C-alpha cells in the first residue's frame, strides 16, 4: 500500500499499534523473531519506514525517526505471563489479513484490543485438563488403571494449586518446589491409602503439567534463530524449573521417609 507522508500523530499511532501487537505475541508465548517481524510488518505496511524494534524475552524497545519522519521511542517491559497460544495464532492471522489490506490502522488497533482480552480457558477446564493429561502420561510411562486414577487426582490438585496459590502468590522457584512436593505427597497418600500400585509412575505422570515445555522449546528455537540473549534466558528459566521440580520431589521423599521410618518405595 503506497502511502504519502504520515504526520507525526499518525506515525505515533502506527508505532503504538505495532508495539501492542508485539506485546500480545511476546506475553503469550511467541518466539522472538515472530515478535520482531510482526512489529516490522505493521510499521512497513502503514508507511513508517524508519520503524525499528529490538525484542528481548521480557521487553520491547522501539524507535522510529529519520530526516523525513518524526522521532518516536518507546520501551515496554513485558513480564513473563502465561501461555495463550490462541492469542498468538489470532495476531498471526490478523497480520496476514493486514497484509492483504483488510484493515485501517484504527481497525487493526480495535482488533488487537479484542485479542488482548480474548478469554482463556476457565480454571475448572484447565484443572480437569491437567488431571486428564497427568493420567494419560502416567499410562504412557507404564502405569495401570489404578495408577492413572491416582495421577488424575494428583493432576487436579496440582493445577488447583498452580492456579490459586503458586501463580498469583509464589515465586517461580518456591512455586515449582512446592508443586513437585505436593504431587509426591498426594501420590504417596493415594499409594498408602490403597489407590495405585506403582508410586513412581503415578508421580512421573502427575509432574508433567509442571514441565516447562514452552520455555524449553522457545528457548531452543530462539537460540537457533540467533537470538542468544532471549534464548538463554528462556533456557535458564526451563532448567531452573526442571531443577525445582526435582528438588520438590526429592524433599517430599525425604520428609516421607522421615515420617514413615523409611517407606518401601
Amino acid at each position, binding site marked *: 500500500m503506497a502511502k504519502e507522508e504520515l504526520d507525526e500523530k499518525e506515525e505515533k499511532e502506527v508505532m503504538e499499534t505495532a508495539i501492542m501487537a508485539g506485546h500480545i505475541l511476546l506475553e*503469550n*508465548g*511467541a*518466539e522472538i*523473531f*515472530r515478535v520482531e*517481524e510482526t512489529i516490522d510488518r505493521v510499521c512497513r505496511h502503514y508507511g513508517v519506514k524508519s520503524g525499528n524494534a529490538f525484542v528481548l524475552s521480557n521487553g520491547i524497545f522501539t524507535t522510529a525517526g529519520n530526516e523525513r519522519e518524526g522521532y518516536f521511542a518507546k520501551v515496554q517491559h513485558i513480564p513473563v505471563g*502465561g*501461555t*495463550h*497460544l*490462541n*492469542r*498468538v*495464532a489470532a495476531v*498471526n*492471522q490478523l*497480520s*496476514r489479513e493486514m*497484509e*492483504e489490506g483488510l484493515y485501517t490502522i484504527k481497525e487493526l488497533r480495535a482488533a488487537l484490543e479484542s485479542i488482548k482480552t480474548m478469554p*482463556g*480457558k476457565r480454571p475448572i*477446564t*484447565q484443572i480437569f*485438563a*491437567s488431571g*486428564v*493429561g497427568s493420567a*494419560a*502420561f502416567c*499410562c*504412557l*510411562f507404564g502405569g495401570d488403571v489404578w495408577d492413572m486414577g491416582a495421577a488424575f487426582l494428583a493432576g487436579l490438585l496440582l*493445577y488447583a494449586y498452580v492456579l490459586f496459590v503458586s501463580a498469583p502468590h509464589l515465586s517461580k522457584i518456591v512455586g515449582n518446589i512446592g508443586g513437585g512436593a505436593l504431587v509426591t505427597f498426594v501420590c504417596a497418600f493415594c499409594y498408602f491409602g490403597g489407590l495405585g500400585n506403582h508410586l*513412581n509412575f503415578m*508421580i*512421573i505422570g502427575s*509432574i*508433567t*503439567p509442571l*514441565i516447562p*515445555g*514452552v520455555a*524449553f*522449546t*522457545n528457548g*531452543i*528455537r530462539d537460540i*537457533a534463530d540467533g537470538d542468544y540473549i532471549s534464548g538463554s534466558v528462556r533456557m535458564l528459566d526451563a532448567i531452573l524449573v*526442571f531443577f525445582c*521440580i*526435582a*528438588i520438590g*520431589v*526429592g524433599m517430599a*521423599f*525425604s520428609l516421607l*521417609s522421615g515420617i514413615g521410618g523409611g517407606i518401601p*518405595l
Partner: protein
Amino acid sequence: MIGEILAAMVGTVAFSLLFGVPRRYYPYCGLIGGAGWWVYSMAASRWEPELAALVATMVVILLSRTTAVWQRCPVTVFLISGIFPLVPGAGIYWTSYYIVTDQLNLALHTGYEAVKTAVAIVLGIVFVFEIPQKVFRAGRKQHEVTPRQL
C-alpha cells in the same frame, strides 16, 4: 501399543488445552503427539533411547511445520504440545529419586540420560528448522507471506 498411542494423543490434547491452543487445532495436536510417541517407541525398540528421541522429535517437527503451513497458523501451536511426550519428565523424577535414596551411581546415570535426551530433542528441533520454509510450501501457491512468518 495402541493404548500407549491413544494415551499420548489424549495427553497432548490435554496440554494443548492448558496452553490455550484454539479448539479447532486439537485434533492435529493429538495426531502429532500420537505420531511422535509411535515413532519413539518403534525406534526405541531398535536403537538407543536418545537416538529414538532425536528421530521422534524430527518427525514431530516435520509434522508440525507441515500442518502449520497447511493451516496457516504459527508452528508453536502444534510444536509445544506435540513434543511433550518426548520431554524427559521421567528422567527428572528418577534422578531425584535416586539422589534421595542415596544411589548416586544410578542418579548420575539417569541424570546423564535425561540430559542426553534433552540434547537429542534440541538437535532434532534445530535440524528440522534448518529446512527452508519453501520446501513446506511446495504444492501451495505462492502467497504474500514471507518465509519466516509461519
